[in-house]
């Protein structure tokens, strides 16, 4: 009995620093773990949205972090948060509690299908019931087909010397 108690105490002591470690979560798509504090530094790993990180050294616009699989590197502070990102509810299942990764796929599917078929059947049905003018349906279709890629956003930020691209 005594041995068990001692073992439990040791376990608790060992776990204490880990419990005290500050956590961060990746909030931006396309986030990379870098070898140095620079956007042009070598990539150590890609970090998916929702990935949990442990803060190793936190100061300024770049943070030294450790990923769940033990890789250490630097991440731009703007790409992480001290609260978890919002998880989506899956497309067809309607189940709360889907994993973030799975829900991202569902969301992406819902979006990519749109440019092929125009308005979704549900919105088309709504427009029909309301007698929405054809011109406005076309405008909505145009809005939905206007896509901005991650690469375009990066180029845009770089040109404006914004965030991780600031000198």
């Amino acid at each position, binding site marked *: 009995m005594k041995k068990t108690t001692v073992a439990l105490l040791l376990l608790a002591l060992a776990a204490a620093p880990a419990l005290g470690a500050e956590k961060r979560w990746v*909030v*931006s*798509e396309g986030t990379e773990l870098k070898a140095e504090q620079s956007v042009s530094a070598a990539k150590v790993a890609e970090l998916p*949205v929702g990935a949990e990180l442990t803060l190793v050294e936190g100061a300024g616009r770049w943070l030294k972090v450790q990923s769940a699989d033990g890789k250490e590197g630097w991440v731009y502070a*703007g*790409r992480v*948060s001290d*609260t978890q*990102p*919002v998880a*989506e*509810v*899956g*497309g*067809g*299942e*309607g*189940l*709360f509690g889907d994993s*973030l990764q799975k*829900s*991202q796929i569902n*969301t992406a599917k*819902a*979006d990519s299908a749109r440019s092929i078929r125009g*308005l*979704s*059947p*549900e*919105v*088309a*049905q*709504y*427009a029909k*019931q*309301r007698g*929405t003018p054809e011109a*406005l*349906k076309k*405008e*909505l279709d*145009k*809005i*939905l087909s*206007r*896509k*901005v890629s*991650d690469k*375009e*956003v990066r180029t*845009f*930020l770089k*040109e*404006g*010397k*914004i*965030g*991780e*691209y*600031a000198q």
Partner: protein
Amino acid sequence: MRTSTMSLFFALACLCSVEAHAGWQDKLQNLMNPESREGKILSGATQVVSSSQEMSYSTERTVGESLALESMQRFGKPVPNEALQKYVNLVGNAVARNSRRSTIPYQFVVLDSPVRNAFAAPGGMIFVSRGLLDVVDNEAELAAVLAHEVGHVAEKHALKSIRRAQFLQGVGTISAATMKGGDGKKFESMIGDLQSTLFDKGLDQGMEYEADLAALETAYRTGYDPAAMVSVLQKLKKLEASDSGKGSWFSTHPPLDERIARLSSRLEKYPDHASLAKVPARFAKYVKVAKKGK
């Protein structure tokens, strides 16, 4: 999930505190009986929570796109300037991907309306009027306004404000088939409620303050000076007296003085903010040119 658990605890706490002397153990036992007073309160609490939280993304998006059709009926079509629309989409997506809800698709639209306003439809479609763009002077200010609206989408404020709507009770996912008949009418009624909330009455003040703080954080994370949110509000304050009010930012948002004061004190959290990007030249290239063309 955490919120629903908290709500249940809150409901339990309310039940326990209302009549603390009347045998709370009995009240807890009554929770299991749906016909008891306590059971009905608990059932109501869970229904309200589930009505907004169990909605699938595709359903939320359908709500948003239907509302978008109504917003164009009311405020006018998008400004027919593709370069401007693309620019606003780039600024908006730059901040949205650093928001608390970065994985959904976002679209940003400039509507050809002189009424100064911006609003967010559920699911990620965000509208800003030509009139509001006239007030903005640099990219950081535009980013702050868009980040404020992204904050509403991230926190699902519009849906939460109407979560008691009949249509939302127990709805997870809708389809074109369920949009017909009685359910279709309920859906239309819900879109009507949303229009009234977003275009006339405005969201709850607490939600507006929450979106303001989210805007500061999101703009800062992206690399824009978050003080731009304060400068936009100060400019709007100067225009407030001469604005007709109806359907504008002034009639649908909390008092500007209070917002400016809250945000100004919050800037202390970002000591290096003044060194961050404002980008007036690029903003002028896309937006000021479009203004001159009007």
